[in-house]
């Protein structure tokens, strides 16, 4: 189909080029008088040649009396002369005769013929019409023609915009369509083949894997001979990339779900199968997804020998590589604190925070992480993450540290710090909450108000009442009242009783509705 369209295209191109007209003449063109007369009639004006009418009987020129248009009584076109001659004959029965003048001098018919022939030969005049051309002899005509480029850049199809557009659209369309279809078909076929292979490998792997894991001890696995290994995992298969991939995926998945000596066995098997070499190679790939795959494998299989390579990726500009590298470093390093995280320049997304948090939550009990390092980061998102960490893993001992930082940080960080204080619910550091209640930042005030309900003191209650008096917005009012209710029930009911408004009533009923508690 592609060939066919190309053919059509070529055909279209050909039919669109108008061949320029070719002009020319024969050498023996004016050899006889008839053709000369014909030529004169068709050519019209010829420089230097003029005609006059004379009375055939008298030989006197009929002159301008007859034709007011010709000023000198001379005609420049032969055809005109002939018509006037005929009309004279019909109207007045005057026999007129044509007189030939070359450069205003009367001449004979043969002399004029010779003169015009010369002009033609030297290409001093151009033939006006093409009817007289001998079309059979185009080549000789072309030879006679003075050179002018026949293709002057104006293809006819540029002239006809529609044909041009259709051709462009069609060709563009076909080229794209066919290449894309071809690509997709190849892609899909490859994929199908791959999937079939994957499924069959999967079946081949699960059996031997469970068997070897239950039947062999850890030592046996480590010292497994090649023969024994290849009994379960045939050597010819192990050379195949896809088979290895299935094996890696299976071992990784098992490792995630298993516990105890099984984990060790899986790792021993992984190394025994030399899958760790391939893993470390992946870290050098230029494709980000391959690198991440490698990092995940290092992480899951505890390949701490690859740690040096992993650390190179910690500040990678690629989000996925960076996250996975940090997670791996956190997981595998024996002695590492969070200072490397502190020095990260890229902002930390919540997705990354979630991943790091899970790991840190698991690690913090047996590793000196120095979370307080994060508070000094130049990167705000990392400082915020530090405050969250304190909260989530419950490092009450770091609260004093946060308290000293509090005055010098931005409002956004203040909110996060107060949240941590509230969450850990240690009734101290009220000064920091009370000072925030006086802030202009609405968000900070509402956070402080919420915290005051949990860890506030008498001063907080007083401040809350002050804000309530100044008629805050609905949302803030609700938080304030709730906190006040928690802090000092007496003050709360006193306030509600003294300030009767629809809004206060609504909030009061909301706060005392048992179904709405702990939403």
């Amino acid at each position, binding site marked *: 189909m592609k060939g066919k369209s190309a053919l059509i295209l070529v055909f279209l191109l050909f039919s669109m080029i108008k061949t320029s007209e070719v002009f020319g003449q024969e050498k023996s063109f004016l050899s006889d008088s008839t053709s000369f007369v014909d030529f004169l009639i068709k050519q019209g004006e010829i420089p230097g040649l003029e005609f006059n009418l004379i009375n055939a009987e008298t030989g006197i020129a009929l002159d301008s009396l007859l034709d007011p248009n010709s000023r000198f009584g001379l005609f420049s076109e032969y055809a005109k002369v002939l018509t006037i001659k005929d009309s004279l004959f019909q109207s007045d029965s005057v026999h007129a005769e044509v007189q030939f003048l070359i450069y205003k001098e009367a001449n004979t018919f043969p002399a004029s013929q010779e003169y015009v022939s010369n002009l033609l030969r030297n290409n001093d005049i151009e033939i006006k019409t093409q009817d007289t051309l001998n079309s059979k002899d185009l080549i000789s005509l072309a030879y006679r023609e003075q050179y002018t480029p026949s293709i002057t850049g104006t293809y006819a199809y540029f002239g006809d915009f529609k044909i041009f557009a259709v051709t462009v659209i069609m060709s563009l369309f076909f080229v794209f369509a066919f290449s894309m279809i071809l690509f997709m078909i190849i892609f899909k076929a490859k994929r199908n083949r791959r999937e079939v292979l994957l499924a069959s490998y999967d079946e081949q792997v699960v059996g031997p894997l469970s068997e070897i894991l239950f039947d062999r001890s850890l030592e046996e696995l480590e010292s497994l001979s090649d023969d024994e290994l290849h009994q379960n995992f045939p050597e010819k298969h192990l050379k195949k990339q896809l088979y290895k991939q299935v094996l890696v995926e299976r071992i990784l998945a098992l490792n995630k*779900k298993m*516990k105890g000596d099984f984990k060790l066995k899986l790792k021993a098997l992984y190394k025994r199968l030399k899958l760790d070499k391939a893993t470390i190679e992946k870290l050098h790939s230029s494709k980000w997804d391959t690198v991440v795959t490698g990092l995940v494998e290092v992480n899951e299989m505890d390949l701490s020998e690859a740690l040096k390579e992993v650390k190179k990726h910690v500040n990678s500009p690629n989000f996925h590589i960076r996250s996975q590298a940090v997670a791996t470093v956190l997981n595998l390093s024996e002695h590492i604190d969070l200072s490397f995280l502190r020095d990260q320049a890229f902002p930390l997304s919540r997705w990354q925070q979630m991943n790091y948090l899970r790991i840190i939550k698991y690690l913090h009990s047996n590793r000196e992480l120095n979370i307080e390092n994060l508070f000094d980061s130049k990167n705000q998102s990392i400082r915020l993450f530090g405050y969250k960490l304190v909260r989530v893993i419950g490092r009450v001992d770091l609260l004093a540290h946060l308290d000293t930082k509090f005055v010098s940080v931005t409002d956004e960080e203040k909110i996060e710090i107060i949240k941590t204080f509230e969450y850990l619910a240690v009734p101290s550091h009220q000064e920091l909450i009370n000072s925030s209640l006086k802030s202009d930042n609405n968000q900070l005030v509402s956070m402080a108000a919420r915290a005051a309900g949990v860890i506030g003191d008498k001063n907080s209650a007083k401040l809350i009442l002050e804000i309530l008096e100044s008629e805050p917005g609905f949302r803030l009012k609700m938080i304030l009242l709730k906190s006040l209710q928690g802090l000092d029930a007496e003050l709360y009911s006193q306030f509600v009783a003294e300030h009767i408004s629809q809004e206060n009533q609504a909030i009061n009923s909301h706060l005392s509705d048992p179904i709405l508690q702990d939403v």
Partner: protein
Amino acid sequence: MKKILIIEDDLLISSLVQFRLKKDGYETVLVKDGNAGISAIDTETLDLIITDVMIPFKNGIEIIHHAIKTKPNTPIIVLSSLGEEEKIVLEAFNLGVADFIPKPFNPNELAIRVKRILKS
């Protein structure tokens, strides 16, 4: 021979558990989702049920409910990647399951617990 039903959507885990239990001489029935689990509970005579709480189509709790209602004498072991403090797990305990094994787990440990439960 004792018959054990395993309801687990992860094929690898279930085949591993199956492999391990077969070694101990149990017969096993393997299903992948909640609906198949319910129909297995209804049709098979079972001595033990091992189930995950997060499986396709039916909530694990629903299955436990169903099993306790129809086969009150069949003990149930819950296998889950959720922690013991999760609400859904607590709920399962309240319903009266025999044991809870958190993932990641050790298949040998599971086998020991199975043996103990089936003995008592």
